[in-house]
């Protein structure tokens, strides 16, 4: 484990991704996750700075926009804009939706259905405020607890690729990204995914995005057929 003495307390590296390092730390008494977008040596310096800056700021802005609409996201404590670090609340005792689904045993079907309804509602709510997440996967959703889950227990994270758009096309693609990730990560969950879309559908304004989802699927299929 990498220990780097800096800031409020030592940063303990817990995950090294392609774009960002995730550290755990204590920040002024609060358990904290520090997400650092590190320098990419192969990228041109100026471009690299711009990209790191843009993704860091976009992540924080979209998290804030979601929060204001009642969608749970980690509290941002501090942005270190020199090093492109976001200090945010560590969601305590949380597990990713991915791990949650993989852990389901008894009552799998009913728990999946409940989860799917929550995801569908949150996505509709998020698209309603024109936030396009950009990287919807079951690893980018955290659950605060695993029993009697409700809407406030699902925390959305990883908004670095997010954007603001009212276009049905962008919402459709957002759903498509999730569909691909969901079904490939969790085999035999077609029914659950359908519940996500059915729930999403019950909200006003969703039909255009779902129509676009159909179109994007078709395009995707054509593309894979061509190779």
């Amino acid at each position, binding site marked *: 484990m990498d220990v780097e*003495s800096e*800031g*409020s*307390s030592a940063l303990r590296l817990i995950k090294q991704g392609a774009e960002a390092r995730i550290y755990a730390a204590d*920040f*002024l*008494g*609060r*358990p904290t996750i520090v997400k650092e977008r590190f320098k990419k040596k192969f990228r041109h310096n100026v471009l690299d700075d711009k990209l790191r800056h843009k993704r*860091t*700021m976009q992540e*924080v*802005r979209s998290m*804030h926009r979601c*929060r*204001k*609409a*009642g*969608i*749970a996201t980690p*509290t*941002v*404590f*501090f*942005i*270190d*804009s*020199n090093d492109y670090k976001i*200090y945010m*609340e560590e969601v305590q005792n949380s597990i990713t939706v991915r791990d949650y689904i993989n852990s389901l045993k008894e009552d799998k079907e009913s728990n999946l259905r409940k989860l799917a309804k929550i995801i569908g*509602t949150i996505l*509709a*709510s998020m698209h*309603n405020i024109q936030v396009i997440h950009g990287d919807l996967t079951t690893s980018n959703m955290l659950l605060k607890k695993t029993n009697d889950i*409700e*809407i*406030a227990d699902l925390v959305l994270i990883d908004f670095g690729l997010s954007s603001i758009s*009212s*276009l*049905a096309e962008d919402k459709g693609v957002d759903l498509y990204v999730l569909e691909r990730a969901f079904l490939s990560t969790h085999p035999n969950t077609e029914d659950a995914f359908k519940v996500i879309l059915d729930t999403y559908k019950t*909200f*006003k*304004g*969703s039909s255009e995005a779902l129509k676009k989802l159909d179109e994007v699927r078709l395009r995707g299929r054509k593309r894979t057929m061509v190779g």
Partner: protein
Amino acid sequence: MTSKIDVTMTSSSSPPVLGSEHLPTGTTPLPQWSAIGNSPRMSLKLNGKYWLHIALFCQVTNLEELKQGLIDNKISAAFINPALIVGIFQLSVAAFKAAHLQDINKMKTRNVHSELLYSLSPSKNIAGSFKKFGLSNDSNAVIVAVIDTDSEENSSKFQMAIQAVKGERIGIEKINDFSKYEDIKKIYSITDAELNTTDLVDAVVNKMAVKDA
């Protein structure tokens, strides 16, 4: 595309009740309470280098004198109106940011203590931030906050600042007695929807942080 979409979140958890339960929950190991005589004070370590020393006063009678002391650089401290403060965490985050910006030479204001006030504010208007978060004629309660490399006993800045205040020093745990929750929600533009998923001090700190985003 202007069709108004109406998505109602149906969370069964009720909004948090505003009150002292909004004090940060995770701060147990850090604040070091020290009751000296009947003048309880508090200090906490911001990072490896800086301390934050805090004292709370009520019935302060020399606000004008304190203002002048800041202008003349005789006092090195932040005097904060407690009305817009929900918890120590809010103060320590603002102080951390001020100290950080001082160290990398990126402060937007004159000194680390004015930067603390500015960091508390959700707005980029510096003069307006001082007016809202600094000494106010509407309140005779004052939080004294000092960022220093010296610990409490050795901090001459802190000792001078608290000696300058003519008023009654009270325990910092009374900080929430002065919080004006409706004003806080308004100034930090906090929605009731947000308070369904987070508590007030987190909503405030989040808003402080996103100011630069």
